């Protein structure tokens, strides 16, 4: 990559300087406080500057895809929760979308509304805690993270009330949702959503003008528009690099065409950690807008269409994708006429966004490598699968 070649001659100069500054090879991880799971970065340091970085992962590999190929379509639904365990709802949705394409099931309207509500709540959960983790990586003592968790808890309570579990929701079914939300849930959700902007105001006041955060994040981990596109980056990270691309707008899947919302993206001059951080902050505001519209427009009706629990689809290939909070999450299924998929493939946004880590980190300080990793927003459950 371009930055790699840019750093190499520089590094040679350091050597020519005469002092035998040997490179310090540091293995950051798999048990490092800020690698967000069992992830390892083999970093070569010249002083504090990263001259080489090799991401090593696979410590959390659980054979997700092969497992799914050996069980019925429905049975792998709970396993999708475990991909990106922060966002089980959107994982469910992407898989449900793919399977619904396969067997052509209609989803009732109330279920569509609830799906949108759940997905946007998930986006709030993910972004708010990502920002918290990110600031934690910057060295804050957990204060923003704990504020984020305080709000996240309210949303997780909603999830628990609806699905029975806080994180492994396993809530979506082919053709709708597993069960309707309990009585009064929508009011509680409205309450949470109405109060969320107050929290966001506070959060922005705490973070967005802080001089230390500004100078730590700006100009760090630049990702150019071209590299972002050619590396297949998706989600907020792509938009932070200045590309206006949101699957909710592109595919207009489900009922996203009914809602008015805007997609924030940067002007693409730098695409640094600050952009990635701010794009997520702004996206939360838009999610609240969607949530308000959805919670206002939801009607009564069944939440589960007349769909079979267990089925034998006709041989076909489908790809279902959603705009997960981390990027494009897609499920690619090949059916061969048996109750089990012939091929089951996940397009994990975390993994694909992670591929540019090295390019972003080279030449930066070791502290920057940590926050760049944080700004990519990975979940190892999804990277390793």
């Amino acid at each position, binding site marked *: 990559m371009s930055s790699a070649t840019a750093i190499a001659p520089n590094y040679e100069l350091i050597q020519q300087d*005469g*002092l035998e500054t040997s490179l310090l090879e540091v293995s950051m991880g798999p048990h490092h406080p800020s690698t967000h799971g069992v992830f390892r970065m083999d970093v070569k340091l010249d002083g504090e500057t990263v001259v080489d970085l090799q991401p090593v992962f696979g410590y959390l590999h659980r054979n997700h895809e092969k497992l799914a190929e050996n069980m019925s379509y429905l049975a792998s639904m709970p396993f999708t929760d475990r991909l990106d365990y922060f966002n089980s709802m959107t994982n469910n949705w992407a898989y449900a979308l793919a399977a619904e394409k396969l067997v052509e099931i209609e989803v009732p309207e109330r279920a569509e509304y609830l799906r949108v509500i759940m997905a946007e709540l998930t986006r709030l959960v993910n972004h708010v805690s990502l920002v918290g983790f990110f600031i934690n990586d910057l060295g804050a003592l957990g204060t923003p993270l704990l504020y984020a968790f305080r709000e996240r808890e309210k949303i997780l309570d909603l999830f628990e009330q609806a699905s029975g579990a806080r994180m492994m929701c396993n809530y979506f079914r082919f053709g709708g949702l597993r069960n309707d939300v309990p009585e009064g849930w929508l009011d509680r959700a409205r309450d949470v959503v109405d109060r969320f902007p107050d929290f966001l105001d506070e959060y922005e006041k705490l973070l967005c003008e802080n001089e230390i955060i500004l100078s730590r994040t700006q100009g760090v981990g630049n990702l150019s528009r071209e590299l972002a596109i050619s590396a297949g980056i998706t989600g907020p990270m792509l938009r932070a690099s200045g590309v206006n691309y949101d699957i909710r707008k592109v595919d207009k899947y489900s009922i996203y065409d009914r809602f008015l919302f805007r997609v924030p993206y940067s002007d693409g001059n730098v695409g640094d950690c600050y952009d990635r951080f701010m794009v997520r902050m702004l996206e939360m505001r838009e999610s609240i807008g969607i949530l308000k519209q959805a919670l206002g427009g939801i009607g009564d009706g069944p939440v589960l269409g007349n769909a079979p629990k267990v089925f034998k689809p006709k041989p076909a290939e489908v790809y279902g994708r959603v705009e997960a909070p981390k990027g494009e999450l897609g499920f690619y299924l090949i059916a061969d006429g048996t109750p089990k998929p012939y091929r089951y493939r996940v397009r994990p946004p975390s993994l694909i966004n992670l591929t540019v880590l090295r390019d972003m980190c080279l030449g930066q300080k070791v502290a920057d490598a940590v926050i760049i990793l944080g700004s990519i927003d990975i979940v190892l459950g999804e990277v390793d699968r």
Partner: protein
Amino acid sequence: MTLHHYLILAAVLFCVGLMGAFTRRNAIVVLFSVEIMLNAANLNFIAFWRYSENPALLHGPLFTLFAIAVAAAEVAVGLALVIAVYRHFKTVDLESMDTLREE
């Protein structure tokens, strides 16, 4: 305590430094030794001042102060030289720096 005690102590320290400077090959250790010798001299200055007839003149501390400042400068330059030498010879072994010697 008398002046003699301090003078003898300073002499011992000076000779320890001298021994280090003469017997070690490592340039940095030689620098250590020079520092030890300088400090022994400083001790002498202070001791002489303390036991002088007119300590209020503060000659001893003033001279020591200047000596310490010069020593600090000396260490900085000395270490810079050591590093320059190291860059050139890839060693700080004084005996291998013999390119000026006639073969």
